């Protein structure tokens, strides 16, 4: 086997296994859902409080 060919190859970086890809996908979906819910929460609170959305007790 010619070692020089291997040395010329670029670093393939981190290769995720199928299990790691699945875990990352699940985490990404959870983060997306959480952020989406946060946006919905702010939207609903804005509707509930109206123009004085930032008026609150101390």
């Amino acid at each position: 086997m010619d070692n020089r060919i291997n040395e010329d190859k670029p670093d393939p970086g981190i290769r995720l296994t199928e299990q790691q890809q699945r875990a990352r996908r699940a985490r990404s979906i959870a983060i997306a859902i959480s952020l989406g819910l946060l946006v919905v929460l702010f939207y609903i609170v804005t509707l509930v409080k109206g123009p004085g959305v930032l008026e609150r007790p101390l």
Partner: protein
Amino acid sequence: MSVTLARAEPSLAGVGDYIELMKPRVMSLVVFTALVGLVLAPGHMHPVIAFTALLCIAVGAGAAGALNMWYDADIDARMARTAGRPIPAGRLAPGEALAFGLTLAGFSVVVLGLLVSIFAALLLAVTIGFYVGVYTIWLKRVTPQNIVIGGAAGALPPMIGWAAVTGGVALEPLVLFLIVFLWTPPHFWALSLYRANDYAQAGVPMLPVVAGATETRRQILRYTLVLAPVGAAPWLLGYAGPLYGIAASLAGMAMIALAIRVRGEQRGHAASKQMFSFSILYLFLPFAMLLVDRMAGGALPGLSIRLSAGG
């Protein structure tokens, strides 16, 4: 000198591991006591804002739990009860837990401050800071009084709930704070009596490890004797009805009876285990009765002594 750069292993952590990091059972108790503080507070709060407040308190409690697991991973690995937690079990890297905890803490405090109450947000920040900085990082490894002082963090949620509505604190939530504060030592010392070997192995100076089982049993009884009348204080002070008074008094007497049994226990840990289990019910019952009492209109409003300005 050569420098080796280690490449981080890609994470296998699932969503369930992150949820476990938030200590959901502790979180549910925190949400429940905060709900009681929120419901008892004078004034009206829109259900959506109330939900937002409880959500922020829950996430803040979860953040504190995650940061606790991040810092205590070495201790957790040495104790049978906690060895299966995500970090010691190797399912989650400490850095992931730290980032998760800090992110949740930031979000919970900022959202509570923006949408509900700045004072409540400050209290939540103090609670998280106290639990992580004072209890976890400082006291837990150096003194048997760790859970006595650290218990203040677990006792603050009813005050946060109250502050979310009023923007301040008053005598009522202070009494709720005292109930949880005085409840914490007998609860955890009962557990530590039958987990003493675990704590000793992990190097955590819990009272039975440092002062022995006899002294721990004595302290459990002392704290319970103080806790029982304080538990009935909302009724004695006139802001809970007789239904609460009867329930809290009976529960307090049962706690004292159990503490006396623990005090006299010579062999085994049957009484300690019973006390630990019942203490959870003891905390739940009076707080649930306060909710029932308020919904039945039994409480007498107007006792508030405002300690802070605000709407």
